[in-house]
């Protein structure tokens, strides 16, 4: 007789009073604080994000200095790196002809290659990803091939592309392209497959055409996934270009390292490594920032 107890005529929910009056909406204003306080807060925040990495960096440099200071050490200590590579550090814009150029010229040449190869990979990768995400047959046919090809290391493609293009520059571009395209394809297709049924229902009710669904639902819903793929892709393409340039030669930060090794300029190599790391970091942040704006801060689940 459980049911009998549940049939009391007046429930709590019905008895909850609902105020009929609507309140005026007044914008909430944070109380003003003295500028001093705010400055202090900003300083505190900056210190808490900047101090830990700076301390760790300092400790590493000290340890490195101590370890490599003994006579007969195989690698130069930081102080020697700075004095050896001083010209290379202070003037990134010199140009003595040939490949004897400043860091700026090497890095911008490499970045230019990445820009071309990566843009091609982005366009083709997103297109293929949408195809694979939307069509079951395309997925069944292409996905196994993608899964095998994506594990091929970038440099393994180089001989083949040299044979195909018979020129070092397009070969380098192809290596970047083929390295960075896989995560873009895979993430885009996952994004397309994960579009909530609700969005498709909405599109069906308002009768969007195939093309409108693509532009107004599929692409925007997939943007967070696409940018995840682009971020991984840009990192991989930077890895690939440095490796590829070592083999194909000419101007570029990759060959700069190889050239420095051949003439035993270890300090230059170390400086170049720092530059490569910083540039790779900035590339990643750049794509992340663009993605943040394009997706209006709506991140992938």
């Amino acid at each position, binding site marked *: 007789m459980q*049911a009998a107890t*549940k049939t009391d005529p007046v429930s709590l*929910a*019905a008895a*909850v009073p*609902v105020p009929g009056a*609507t309140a005026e909406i007044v914008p909430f204003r944070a109380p003003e604080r003295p500028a001093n306080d705010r400055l202090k807060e900003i300083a505190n925040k900056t210190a808490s994000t900047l101090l830990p990495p700076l301390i760790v960096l300092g400790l590493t440099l000290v340890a490195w200095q101590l370890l490599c200071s003994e006579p007969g050490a195989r690698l130069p200590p930081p102080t020697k790196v700075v004095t050896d590579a001083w010209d290379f550090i202070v003037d990134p814009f010199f140009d003595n002809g040939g490949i004897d150029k400043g860091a700026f010229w090497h890095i911008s040449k490499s970045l230019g290659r990445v820009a071309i190869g990566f843009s091609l990979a982005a366009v083709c990768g997103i297109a293929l990803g949408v195809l694979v995400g939307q069509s079951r047959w395309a997925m069944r046919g292409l996905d196994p091939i993608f899964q095998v090809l994506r594990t091929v290391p970038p440099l393994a493609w180089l001989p083949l592309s040299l044979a195909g293009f018979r020129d070092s520059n397009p070969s380098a571009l192809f290596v970047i392209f083929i390295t960075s395209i896989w995560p873009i394809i895979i993430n885009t297709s996952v994004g397309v497959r994960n579009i909530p049924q609700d969005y498709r229902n909405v599109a069906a*009710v308002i009768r969007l055409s195939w093309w409108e669904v693509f532009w107004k639902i599929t692409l925007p819903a997939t943007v967070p996934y696409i940018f995840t793929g682009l971020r991984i892709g840009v990192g991989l393409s930077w890895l690939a270009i440095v490796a590829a340039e070592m083999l194909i030669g000419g101007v570029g930060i990759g060959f700069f390292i190889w050239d420095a090794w051949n003439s035993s300029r270890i300090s230059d190599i170390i400086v170049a490594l720092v530059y490569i790391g910083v540039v790779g970091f900035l590339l990643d942040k750049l794509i992340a920032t663009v993605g943040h704006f394009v997706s*209006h801060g709506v991140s992938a689940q």
Partner: protein
Amino acid sequence: MEKPYLRFEQIGMSFRRGQMATEVLRHIDLDIAKGEFVSMIGHSGCGKSTLLNILGGLLQSTTGEVFLEGKVVDEPGPDRAIVFQNHSLLPWLTVYGNVAIAVDKVFGASKSKAERHDWVMHNLELVQMAQARDKRPHEVSGGMKQRVGIARALAMQPKVLLMDEPFGALDALTRAHLQDSVMEIHARLGNTVLMITHDVDEAVLLSDRVVMMTNGPAATIGEVLPITLPRPRRRLELATDLEYARCRAAVLEFLYARHRVPSRAA
């Protein structure tokens, strides 16, 4: 005899998974008049949402047909706009954009750009969301999201407004507010509404008729209870109203005494 505005005729639905077929709905017959507010109530899994999706055109019934104004319903369309349970707003569009995407598509040919803009704003005002037009869905509360979902559906000027547990995910106070809004809008516009719910008070308060579903599998309409309470209805006065209490008791009795879900705690 006059044809009914909306008619479910011998609707049956089975889902097939491999060799197994589960019958969800059987022999659903229901006529709904123009301007009528009908609620459908039943325990979870009784196929209420399936029936709504058949009317919405998102699912095809296995047997039987749905007729709207004498025409067979066989695909989704804006004349049967749906308010989804989880609001289903597109997160990359603003509140305004979410209504505009529907208005632009449905009235793209018949209304000018300025008219469409006015129509979007009119519907946002109807649900009191005009002031939040430039916010994105994640910046507004659950109740506000559902208001926008209602505005989007109303903006399509549907022949029937379908609501799939529209307030299920909201807290009691927000729900009460929205119920009042829906009653007010229904009084003003005279829409034909089919609402799925499992809230007894909500069903009795809002509806002209409450359709009670038996339990699945092979659920069907168990009973239809007309609610003759005069409109406008005020929930405070109804709390002590005898007729309201009687209707409420009738629905509760159906759900918990005669069609209790066996071996499942409510």
